[in-house]
């Protein structure tokens, strides 16, 4: 089948997946102990009578499948509910927090990918040498570092003690210090630096490990022997023959990570009070704002499905075996 057919079929396959995600979400809401009303409308000060009226209005007396259809139609029109804590529609809140989170994600994952792959290749090329040992050890340290602790420690060292970078937030808040124009962007970047480094370090470590492992596996393959027998230079073999094969699984992992972007953000944003979706979710957790959390779960799940789709398609573009079978 051709590439176009593959992309088409794969996209089609995503639709039942999204449906499943929505269904799963629905089941989750209704399987929680207690009343969905409480979960969906929070600890508002309502009397028992009013609860009944709400239930009636919300159609909770209806059979379950009816409720699901209502839920489905609401979701499809973009109505993810109303956050009682923030007093805003959930979807608006997400839209507000999205740019900040995206900024953080791109600042951390992209450099981590590039540097991680390069280091992983170097480590694999000189396997078991001192350079490899150094890189691998650093990688496993970085990978084991709890991100939130790393954040806290870096705030301690770089903000509190050294004062090099601001500790919290995305911008400096004092009116007197409010900046505009270029100053504003510099300010944001200063605030971005620490969280991006802390979060990026974990991704970097995991990509180094993964690339190295993948490269080592590929370098043992037979076609590398063929390449060597052609008298090609080592670097040529490394990049033209080995890397092309080794990067495929790495790509899958990066794609998955990007899909799970919001989950990764929660912790870092909490530590650094970075005003993105992560902080939003943290507030939802603390205040038990289930509508917000459910909405977040749904959005994240759909993102993952979408990210998987994109990753699979990219894989199909790069690996000829998929589309020509």
């Amino acid at each position, binding site marked *: 089948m051709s590439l176009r057919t593959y992309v088409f079929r794969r996209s089609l396959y995503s639709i039942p*997946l999204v449906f*499943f*995600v929505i269904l*799963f979400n629905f089941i*989750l809401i209704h399987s*929680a*102990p207690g009343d969905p009303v409480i*979960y969906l409308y929070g600890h508002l000060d309502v009397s028992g009578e009013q609860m009944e009226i709400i239930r009636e209005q919300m159609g909770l007396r209806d059979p379950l499948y009816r409720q699901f259809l209502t839920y489905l139609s609401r979701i499809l029109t973009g109505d993810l509910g109303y956050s009682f804590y923030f007093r805003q529609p959930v979807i608006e809140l997400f839209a507000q927090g999205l740019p900040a989170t995206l900024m953080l994600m791109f600042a951390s994952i992209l450099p981590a990918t590039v540097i991680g792959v390069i280091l992983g290749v170097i480590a694999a090329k000189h*396997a*078991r040498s001192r350079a490899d040992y150094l890189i691998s*050890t650093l990688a*496993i*340290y970085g*990978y*084991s*570092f*709890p991100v*939130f*602790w790393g954040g*806290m*420690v870096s*705030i*301690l060292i770089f903000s*509190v003690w050294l004062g090099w970078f601001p500790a919290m937030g995305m911008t400096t808040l004092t009116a007197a210090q409010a900046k505009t124009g270029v100053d504003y962007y510099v300010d944001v970047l200063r605030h971005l630096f620490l969280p991006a480094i802390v979060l990026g370090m974990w991704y970097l470590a995991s990509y180094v490990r993964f690339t190295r492992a993948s490269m*080592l596996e590929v370098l*043992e393959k037979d076609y590398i022997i063929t390449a060597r027998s052609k008298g090609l230079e080592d670097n040529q073999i490394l990049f033209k023959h080995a890397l092309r094969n080794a990067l495929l699984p790495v790509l899958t992992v990066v794609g998955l990570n990007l899909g*799970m972007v*919001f*989950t990764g953000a*929660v*912790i870092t944003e*909490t*530590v650094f009070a970075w005003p993105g979706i992560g902080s939003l*979710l*943290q507030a939802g*957790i*603390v205040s*038990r704002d*289930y509508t917000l*959390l*459910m909405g*977040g*779960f749904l959005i*994240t*799940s759909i993102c*993952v*499905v979408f990210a*998987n789709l994109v990753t699979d398609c990219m894989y199909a573009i790069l690996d000829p075996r998929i589309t020509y079978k």
Partner: protein
Amino acid sequence: MISSQTRESFARWTSFWREYSKHRGAVIGLGVITAMITVSALAPYVAPFDPEEITVDRWLPPSSHHLMGTDNMGRDVLSRTIWGGRISLFIGFVAATIAILVGVLIGAMAGYFGGKLDDLLMRLTDGFMVIPTFFLVLLIVSMFGSTTFNIMIVLGLTSWPETARVARAEFLSLSKMEFIDAARVLGAGDLRIMFFHILPNAFPPILVALSMRVAGAILNEAALSFLGLGDINVITWGQMLHGAIRYMALGWWMAVFPGLCIFFTVLAFNIIGDGLTDALNPRLRHR
């Protein structure tokens, strides 16, 4: 027949251990973990103070009296760390064990029986991998209550897919080997074959998965507690970090020490996992 097989398995284990001990870090890692387990098991005898005892000596920096200082409620950080280790490690192990049990069960059935069952189970596994599990854990814990029990169960039940894959790969390749045919010819039933013949030989990669899972579970539990979803009735390292974030400028020791413990524990398990993988991989062994 069985005894010669046991002898062979034994020989495999001893040569495996020999290979493993060549990896210095892994041996150190094992030592670190053993030390930690011992210390936390002996918590009542080792901790210098009562971890819950609130005093007026708040925010004391580390000294010879309080090796790790005191926290915002005057409690000795060292004692809290030791006692906290108990729960953190316990949760880690239990959650990982649950994940391994479920994963091996599913993977074994998929790999051994193959066919439609394999397809079905693998789709289930893939589906699970797509769900943002940490988020799911967040949701479930916040909805169903954040008790230690809940946390362990949920962490365990959301992290089995990776183990399932590993188990499936092992069972798939091992069930094609000749000694399995021999066992079948002798009349061994499927269940018996899976447990007595395949499982002992599939152990090493499963052990690797276990090590990684414990590391993961400890990190996840700490993350959960850090976000405020931990069991407030118990002390864990993550809980301590949650409490420490507000007072960082006042007492860095409150945050640094528990985090250090998490770091070393997770590091140790990861290195052990790496050491195990190296010991299993023949090609990279020779220099």
